[in-house]
């Protein structure tokens, strides 16, 4: 059942083309029951023990698809299915019925299964496969408006970066499974101590982190996320803020029990997280596009969650539960949930503004307060939550974040500096939040592409409900915490907490005038000052030269790679079959020689070898001479006659080696062949000698000689080493009794291997038909060619 539900969106997607054909109304109405079913189903798991289900995929390699619902997986699953409902509802009003909706919803459903698969997989292979499914779905959705160059480039960039990370992560997974001998993450966790002993420990650590950082848009890999904003807004709200970009966070959380045995894991994650937090919030203020601001904001918030997980890993490392920062994992997940609510709502609002005014450029917007009062209210509440202003849910988790970072000063390298940095980043967070609202709704109204008016209620429902959920979290934070988050924390830090009730954190809105509150107050005051003077210092951003940005670096790497690979493949893929054969034969002979040598096949013995008669010597000389003449021949007649000589020599060899049937057949066939050669090639040019460049000639000689040598050594090895007894004696014994014949070769052909001979005749017949066809088609084909010229 669990697995069926997991694949339900994917299966349903298969029916979309049919529904599109026969169904009436907006396609979204047919799709929306899916996330509702998922949400209801996953809700029924709240408070239950971990559930596990699997089906085998490649049993010999222990590869399987599986679904494991522990606290962490359940939290993410509910997030994916729950936000999915709102996004789908919103998309019904956002996307026009005339668009390619079946494709849109197909990709979205594919993503849903992929993402659920990522967070529920216990097998690393399953995790990786679903991970790539999400990357791929994201690629398709970003490129949804594929006529648009920006969409295409954005899709390409996200694919390059996330697939790169995915492959790195796969490498890490394979190292882990190689060390532990299992594909299951649970079993790996049980062997965490053994993994730490491995010499590849740090390699696996770096590889898995690369996967997580690329997917979760950490510096310096974040550059794909702002460009992903070319996707339709429901996609940005869903994949690129609430769910997919959190897959990296999920992987970090999931692998913390394995890697937290060293301080490196926690330190790297915390530092990268903090850098991303500062970087994202700093550049968010620079953006001109509403969705661009939100994209950088997402980058920064992902960094914040990441840094808290880093601190959480350090807690697991030190095993110290005396300080408050033991609850870093809790704070991270709590903020993850809050972020999904307010960022989802804000993306939807950005979409609404775009929808109603025709632009997302903040320089063209302004003064919309009077025409869009409801939108303003919703946006305002969302941004205040994002800025971490009391009394909104963003504030609750932001305060936990401050507390965590303040108290973990000693644990982190340069702890005080780190804290100063995140406090500064919070000021920027406050500024871009305010900049987002004020730039859109306050100030002077400009002329817009469309005449603005309040959004229809259908569009507004989803963001409003998301905000209401946020408010419920504000008033009942501990309900959410107890039901979902604490159990997830147990999954991340199993060594610290045995059960959800051990996570003794209690969230409350008001702590009195604590240090954290004063920090927040400072953020608000300085933030307001910053926004008021924004016009004066915002142009500073433009001073940074364009050629020193990460985007330029990415473009250069791509274009250099593109050019050099094109050059290389033109060099190798010449389209000349001769060259391909040269390389293939050369490789095969080298490989064969190597294997023969490695397996000790060159132990020759000539036991039982027959003696050389004078006639044999003559035949050998004639055969070799004939072959040399074929090689050297400059006219076709010489070559064909020399080939005949070679063939008759072979026939005489058959006579010498007591094979009369072969000799007869060979004589007949050789005669017919020579006649055929002469007949068919009466029209070909007389000269067959070719001019060739010296360089190619030597390579050709070398390859031919090495093939010849290989075959010779192979033949000698095959003769010398009889690994198995011959089965010929069976035929010798039974041929008279069972088949009633004396000529063993003939009886084998027509009796023991009668079907083989039948098919051989069939092959000849087919070849004959093909020849006939080729000769008959002569006229027509020739004419067509002439006409085209």
């Amino acid at each position: 059942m669990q697995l069926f539900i997991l694949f339900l969106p994917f299966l349903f997607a298969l029916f979309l083309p049919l529904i599109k054909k026969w169904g009436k109304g907006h396609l979204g109405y047919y799709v929306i029951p899916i996330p509702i079913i998922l949400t209801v189903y996953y809700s029924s798991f709240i408070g239950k023990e971990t559930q596990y289900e699997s089906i085998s995929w490649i049993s010999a390699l222990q590869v399987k698809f599986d679904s494991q619902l522990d606290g962490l997986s359940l939290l993410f699953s509910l997030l994916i299915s729950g936000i999915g409902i709102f996004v789908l509802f919103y998309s019904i009003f956002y996307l026009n019925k005339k668009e390619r909706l079946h494709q849109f919803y197909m990709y979205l459903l594919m993503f849903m299964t992929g993402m659920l698969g990522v967070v529920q997989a216990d097998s690393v292979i399953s995790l990786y496969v679903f991970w790539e499914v999400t990357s791929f779905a994201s690629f398709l959705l970003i490129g949804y408006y594929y006529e648009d160059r920006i969409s295409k480039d954005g899709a390409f960039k996200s694919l390059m970066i996330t697939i790169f990370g995915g492959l790195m992560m796969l490498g890490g997974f394979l190292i882990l499974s190689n060390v532990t001998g299992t594909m299951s993450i649970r079993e790996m966790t049980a062997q965490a101590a053994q993994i730490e002993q491995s010499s590849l420990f740090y390699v696996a650590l770096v590889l898995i982190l690369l996967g997580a950082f690329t997917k979760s848009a950490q510096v310096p890999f974040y550059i794909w996320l702002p460009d992903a904003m070319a996707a339709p807004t429901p996609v940005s709200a869903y994949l690129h803020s609430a769910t997919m970009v959190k897959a990296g966070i999920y992987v970090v959380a999931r692998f913390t029990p394995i890697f937290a045995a060293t301080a490196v894991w926690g330190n790297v994650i915390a530092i990268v997280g903090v850098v991303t937090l500062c970087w994202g919030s700093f550049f968010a203020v620079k953006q001109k596009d509403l969705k661009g601001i939100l994209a950088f904001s997402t980058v920064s918030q992902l960094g914040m969650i990441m840094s808290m997980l880093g601190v959480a890993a350090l807690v697991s490392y030190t095993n110290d539960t005396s300080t408050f920062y033991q609850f870093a994992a809790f704070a991270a997940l709590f903020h993850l949930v809050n972020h999904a609510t307010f960022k989802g709502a804000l993306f939807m609002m950005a979409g609404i503004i775009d929808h109603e005014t025709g632009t997302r450029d903040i320089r063209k917007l302004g003064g919309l307060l009077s025409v869009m009062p409801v939108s303003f209210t919703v946006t305002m509440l969302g941004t205040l939550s994002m800025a971490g202003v009391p009394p909104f849910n963003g504030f609750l988790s932001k305060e936990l974040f401050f507390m965590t970072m303040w108290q973990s000063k000693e644990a982190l390298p340069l702890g005080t500096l780190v804290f100063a940095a995140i406090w500064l980043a919070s000021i920027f967070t406050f500024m871009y939040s305010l900049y987002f609202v004020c730039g859109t709704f306050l100030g002077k109204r400009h002329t817009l592409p469309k005449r603005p008016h309040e959004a229809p209620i259908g569009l507004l429902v989803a963001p409003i409900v998301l905000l209401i959920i946020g408010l419920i979290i504000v008033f009942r934070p501990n309900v959410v915490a107890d039901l979902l988050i604490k159990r997830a924390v147990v999954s991340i830090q199993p060594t610290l907490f045995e059960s959800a009730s051990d996570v003794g954190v209690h969230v409350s809105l008001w702590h009195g005038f604590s240090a954290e509150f004063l920090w927040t107050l400072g953020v608000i005051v300085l933030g307001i000052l910053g926004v008021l003077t924004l016009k004066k210092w915002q142009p500073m951003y433009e001073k940074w030269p364009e050629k020193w940005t990460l985007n330029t670096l990415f473009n250069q790497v791509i274009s250099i790679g593109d050019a050099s690979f094109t050059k290389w493949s033109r060099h190798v893929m010449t389209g000349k079959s001769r060259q391909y054969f040269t390389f293939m034969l050369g490789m095969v002979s080298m490989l064969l020689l190597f294997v023969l040598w490695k397996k000790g096949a060159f132990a020759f013995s000539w036991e039982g070898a027959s003696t050389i008669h004078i006639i044999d010597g003559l035949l050998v000389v004639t055969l070799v001479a004939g072959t040399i003449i074929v090689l050297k021949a400059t006219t076709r007649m010489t070559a064909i006659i020399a080939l005949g000589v070679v063939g008759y020599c072979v026939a005489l060899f058959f006579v010498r080696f007591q094979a009369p049937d072969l000799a007869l057949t060979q004589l007949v066939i050789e005669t017919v062949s020579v006649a055929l050669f002469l007949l068919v090639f009466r029209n070909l040019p007389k000269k067959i000698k070719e001019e060739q460049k010296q360089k190619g000639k030597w390579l050709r000689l070398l390859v031919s000689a090495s093939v010849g040598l290989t075959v010779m050594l192979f033949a000698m090895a095959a003769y010398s080493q009889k690994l198995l007894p011959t089965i010929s004696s069976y035929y010798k014994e039974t041929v008279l009794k069972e088949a009633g014949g004396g000529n063993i070769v003939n009886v084998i052909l027509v009796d023991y291997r009668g079907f083989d001979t039948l098919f051989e005749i069939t092959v000849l017949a087919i070849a004959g038909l093909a020849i006939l066809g080729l000769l008959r088609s002569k006229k027509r084909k020739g004419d067509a060619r002439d006409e085209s010229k």
Partner: protein
Amino acid sequence: MEFVMCAVIGFLFFAAVYLMLSRNVLRIILGTAILSHGAHLLILTMGGLGGEKPPVLQDGVKNAMMADPLPQALILTAIVISFGVTALLLVIGYRTYQTAKTDKIDDLKEDEFHE
């Protein structure tokens, strides 16, 4: 004798590959013909050449010095098949020359790489 035959087979393969890597269509077909000769002798040699009598029962009695019948049966099939292949290749080569007016293999490829 086996040693000499191994060397001869190696030489036949060398000649066959050398011809098959040439530019001329006829030489390529000659190469495949020589290749099949080499392969047939290879199968025969691998089984040993020590037989002193053909693998035919004399009055229902088998001779201890009889040649191995199995490789011979295999080769018999192979000879006929290789004749079929050679014949087909010949006609293809002939038709190609008629259509393309060239017997140089490099002239036959598509021109997509000559931009």
